[in-house]
């Protein structure tokens, strides 16, 4: 399943795994998403970029069914997420979610964090779950921290555990909601490395990020959000080198200007 490092230059396959079709959402009277459409194909990495508060994280939460939508639909592997008869628990087991704030369970050791859903949701026996969890920690390079509590890990390590926890469920798709925005600059790299490796292994990924360098190198497709909608999408080369929309240009040059203050403004989102 290893894909060559420069797949993002090749033509886009057409095997949609996750599809957003004209999704709109309001919080009270505030518009959060407006007519947002894009598609994630199997084995593809889609990066969502855009200013804070533009709806990037909201649309990920909608994909997991943790948020309702007011119009349009989201289809995942042939299932309409917000249809009444959709079993959201089954659907969520096929999607891994990684949060900006890690959300590890602080009362459980690292390995128990990874094993919890295997035992409780998959009803695996404890030993099998622990063996699988060890494999996952191996994959993110943290096997030696298996019996530590999350509080004793650095932010980067915690985020890698969160990735291992999601991978343990063998999801078809991984959603990353600003996975490096809460990290110290020196630990961002280790998380991005793990994500890059996942991408190379062919994992389908949707990544909300402010790491433009990551988006440019790893993404097969880039979606630009502003004011709750998709203002532009295309292969990274096109978006970064020749954006067609003025607001995309504005956003990218704004980032160029304010590289240092970037992570601060993300946190307030």
């Amino acid at each position, binding site marked *: 399943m290893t894909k060559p490092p420069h797949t993002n230059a090749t033509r886009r396959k057409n095997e949609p795994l996750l599809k957003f079709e004209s999704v709109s959402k309001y919080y009270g009277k505030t518009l959060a998403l407006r007519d947002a459409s894009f598609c994630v194909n199997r084995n593809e990495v889609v990066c969502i970029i855009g200013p804070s508060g533009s709806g990037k994280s909201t649309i990920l*939460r909608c994909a*997991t069914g*943790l948020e309702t939508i007011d119009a349009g639909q989201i289809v995942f592997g042939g299932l309409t997420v917000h249809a009444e008869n959709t079993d959201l*628990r*089954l659907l*969520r*087991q096929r*999607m*891994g*979610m990684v*949060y900006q*704030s890690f*959300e*590890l*369970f*602080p*009362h459980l050791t690292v390995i128990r964090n990874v094993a*919890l*859903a295997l035992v*409780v*949701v998959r009803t695996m026996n404890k030993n099998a779950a622990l063996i699988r969890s060890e494999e996952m920690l191996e994959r993110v390079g943290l096997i030696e921290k298996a019996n530590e509590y999350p*509080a004793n890990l650095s932010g980067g390590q915690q985020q890698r555990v969160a990735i291992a*926890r*999601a991978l343990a*469920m063998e999801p078809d798709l991984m959603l990353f909601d600003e996975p490096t925005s809460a990290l110290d600059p020196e630990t961002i790299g280790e998380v991005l490395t793990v994500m890059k490796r996942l991408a190379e292994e062919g994992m389908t990924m949707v990544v909300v990020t402010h790491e433009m360098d990551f988006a440019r190198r790893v993404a097969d497709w880039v979606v630009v959000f502003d004011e709750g909608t998709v203002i532009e999408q295309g292969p990274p080369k096109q978006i970064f080198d020749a954006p067609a929309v003025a607001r995309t240009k504005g956003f990218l040059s704004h980032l160029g200007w304010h590289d240092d203050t970037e992570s601060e403004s993300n946190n307030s989102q």
Partner: protein
Amino acid sequence: MNLDWSVVWDHRRQFLDGALMTILLTVVTMSLALPGGLLLALLRLSPLRPVRLCATAFVEFFRATPLILQIYWAFYVLPATFDIRLPDFATGVIGLSLNVSAFNSETFRAGIISVRQGQTNAGLALGLSKTQVFIYIILPQAIMRVLPALANTWVSLFKDTSLVSTIAIAELSYVSLQIRARTFRFLEMLTAMAAIYWIMGYPQAKLADWIHRRFKVQE
């Protein structure tokens, strides 16, 4: 003044029985009031408004009236009005555990609410049901956070058991006051009573302090 401490030693058997009864009352009351408090906390967090209101009314009643009144109520009003006659010990335990349940429910509720929403979302995203999220993720964290407060309630309860002496349960206060009435040795008896309470209560207070330090919220 002529003090005669031998009277204390002479009644050591009664003191011991009284102290054991105090401990028994505390243990039985708490083992009812912990699940009771948790249940009330869950009812207060229920999505159903009538359920929430009933639980709130219950809690606010028991929090805002004196414990001694609740004990009297269980002792006099239950039998007279509802024809419910229970042994004195059961009556005392009911009065105490209703009261402590109300306090514990506030403690549990605060602990449950203090676990941030992201933890629930992370659990749901892994495919856990809401009940599983509560049992495996929210509740353990909530309990660790409220252990210090529960330890304080325990220490208060230990001392408050003395209030059931008013309905003739032979715990430490009742026993001491009885002997005092019989021997007229009030200074010796009250001193002995204070000493026994302190000897038993002090280690508990120290243990509560240790729990405070050990389970301090760190985030």
